């Protein structure tokens, strides 16, 4: 019974992931099909149709900067248009730091006499790879429990048995993904446009309690078996500070939808990994001869400290 419920959950999560993958990868301007880095100091832009040569070759039509520093404009040395007038190559004076996403704004694109307005597009290296690095980063390199020291109350409370640890981890991951996506949506489309950022904390905590309540109600009606297995952990989710830390992080770093999803997923899975590791050790500790003063929480803290030291080995690692 238990394995089927776990499988059900996995299928749900994968379906959600697939859906978001399909919808999240569009470019920002309909006429710009593709942007990519080329060599060390060029960017290639592909258009959906031919563009006017005169306008396209004017260097002053383009402004390019790295996403974190909009004030530092990068100098373009050359603009080339391919013979079919669909591919544009911008060459820069200096080498580009390809780890950072770059933003390009193009003034007034003209195609066959029609004006298509200005475009504002971003260039990122290996977008999927970048997403993967956000995921792994949240999961291992900056593991929320062992490297950022969050969610400890629940961590020590539910890591006594492996079965509890897995149940808590899975419930937490689902609620985390759910509430992080809603938080991202609210932040980007309500809080930011209306300059209400200072209400972040109030809105996010309300959102988290709401989504816990929503998951509770939906699960109870939809799948009573699943609810029986994971319902008890739902209340604990809200006492976990990771669940409020992730929305705050994604708001502070201005992540887009896919990056937020990956961060939330990484945080959830990272918490699951931490819980499982800890539970395995604590099951062994039950059999060990621990001095009476260290029994219970103190020894658990020392074990967590050793884990944190081990996780320190991941720090500074970068993927792609």
């Amino acid at each position, binding site marked *: 019974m238990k394995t089927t419920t776990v499988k059900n959950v996995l299928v749900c999560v994968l379906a959600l992931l697939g859906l978001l993958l399909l919808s999240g990868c569009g470019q920002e301007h309909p006429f710009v099909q593709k942007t990519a880095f080329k060599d060390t100091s060029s960017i290639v832009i592909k258009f959906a149709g031919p563009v006017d040569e005169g306008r396209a070759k004017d260097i002053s039509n383009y402004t390019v900067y790295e996403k974190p520093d909009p004030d530092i404009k990068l100098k373009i040395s050359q603009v080339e248009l391919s013979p079919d007038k669909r591919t544009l190559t911008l060459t820069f004076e200096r080498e580009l730091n390809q780890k950072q996403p770059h933003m390009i704004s193009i003034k007034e694109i003209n195609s066959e006499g029609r004006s298509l307005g200005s475009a504002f597009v971003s260039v990122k290296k290996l977008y999927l790879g970048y997403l993967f690095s956000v995921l792994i980063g949240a999961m291992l390199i900056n593991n929320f429990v062992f490297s950022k020291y969050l*969610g400890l109350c629940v961590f020590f409370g539910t890591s006594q048995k492996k079965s509890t640890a897995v149940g808590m981890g899975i419930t937490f991951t689902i609620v985390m993904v759910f509430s992080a996506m809603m938080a991202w949506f609210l932040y980007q489309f309500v809080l930011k446009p209306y300059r209400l950022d*200072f209400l972040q904390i109030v809105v996010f905590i309300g959102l988290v309690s709401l989504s816990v309540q929503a998951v509770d109600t939906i699960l109870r009606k939809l799948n009573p078996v699943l609810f029986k297995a994971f319902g008890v952990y739902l209340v604990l989710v809200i006492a976990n500070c990771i669940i409020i*830390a992730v929305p705050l992080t994604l708001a502070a770093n201005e992540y887009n939808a896919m990056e937020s999803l990956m961060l939330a997923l990484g945080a959830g899975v990272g918490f699951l990994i931490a819980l499982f590791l800890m539970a395995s050790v604590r099951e062994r500790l039950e059999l060990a001869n621990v001095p009476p*003063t260290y029994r219970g929480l103190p020894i658990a803290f020392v074990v*967590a400290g050793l884990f944190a030291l081990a996780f320190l080995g991941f720090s500074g690692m970068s993927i792609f």
Partner: protein
Amino acid sequence: MPATTKTTSQLLFNGILSENPIFRLALSMCPAVGITTTVMNGLLLGVAVLFVQVFSGCTIAAIKNHIHPRIRIPTYTLTIATWVTVIDLILAAYLPDAYKQMGIFVKLIVAFAIITMRLETFACKNTVKSSFWDGLGMGLGFLLGMMTLGFVRELLGMGTLFGYDVLGVRPLLFFVLPAAGFFCVGFMMAIFNYVELAYNRSKTAKQS
């Protein structure tokens, strides 16, 4: 449950000693591990928690008769969130450097179990005055716990206190590492346990 009959000083010391949030109740461990690398950090976050604890306790005690029992918890959460926003903005405006060091933890006060717990078990049943003293006691207990940890870690790790050089050497740089926070809290709890065990043993020895 009837309102508390404890006196002001009993309420105050209850939070500092017998129900110390960090070492006795083992609640709100995240900041205790995460940012107690210096005494100053511990002090500042302690003050922030004290502020939120006292004010949200008073708010809930003042409006306790108007809260419907079924929306009790959301009300608590929103009250805490409001006061956290206040202290967050104040710290960001007046102490930007320290605020940067504490990072996300000031905002995370909203999820600290200790504050919600005190509202649920104390403030919703008592008067504003006793809630104020209870909040002050709990907040001071938290503040002292944070400062003790910060004291040990800063002294052993950097050889300094409040940024001033005290020892002249750095005995154990290891204690500045974030991972050492876990060890520190673990050892501290073990010491508390040891004292308690020794105390109980001497008590039973006297009786028999």
